[in-house]
């Protein structure tokens, strides 16, 4: 399994872009899971 690690230095303006991207990605994921959970017994995102 290949893992590519990218380190973004402090004060690099790309940090905000990356953070915003992942925050949106995670929120969409949680929204999707919440919709699924509404009609299910599942409680936990593992």
């Amino acid at each position, binding site marked *: 399994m290949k893992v590519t690690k990218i380190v973004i230095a402090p004060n690099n303006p790309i940090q905000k872009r990356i953070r915003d991207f992942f925050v949106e990605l995670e929120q969409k994921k949680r929204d999707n899971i919440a919709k699924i959970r509404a009609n299910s017994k599942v409680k936990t995102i*593992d």
Partner: protein
Amino acid sequence: MEEFYSFAVSEENSANGIVRYNFLTNSSIEYDVIFDPSSYAFFIEESEILGSHLFSVDLVANISITEIPKTIDKLIPKTITRILIDFYEKRDHIPVIFFVCDRANKKQLARHRKFRLWTTCSPDFCLNYTIESLEIVLDQTEEDADRFYFGYIIQKENPHHDILLNEINSKAELLTRSLK
């Protein structure tokens, strides 16, 4: 001893494309493995090749996170691997699956380790699938960094394997390219 838990496709919703597998562990914990045609995979969803073959995968349990036993159940990753294989086989090995390691509870690294465990516990799976992960570290100070992980899987028999791999890597590179 069985090598994995028996599982079933408990839901295949044609309206939204979600496919849900279900299995019950020896500890009576019920897990759902959910394949979603990835409304949140927006950063690569515009790909013509990927088209409708892009899925996210999530594992959800019917208990709260504090109730999950601390002991390791080795059958769970093996079961998930079998479910991944079943999912691919029923779709002619075409899907591209990815896993976003949610930062909730600051457990993104633990979720990344789980993804690695699911995808590397079977030598056959490793042979037949390309499994890669991206770790992006936003370095704040020497002691503090915010880490983001996601992993993806492409079956090696996928006729567009190389193109897809390049496409995903290009998207990731674009995402991390410095702003001018």
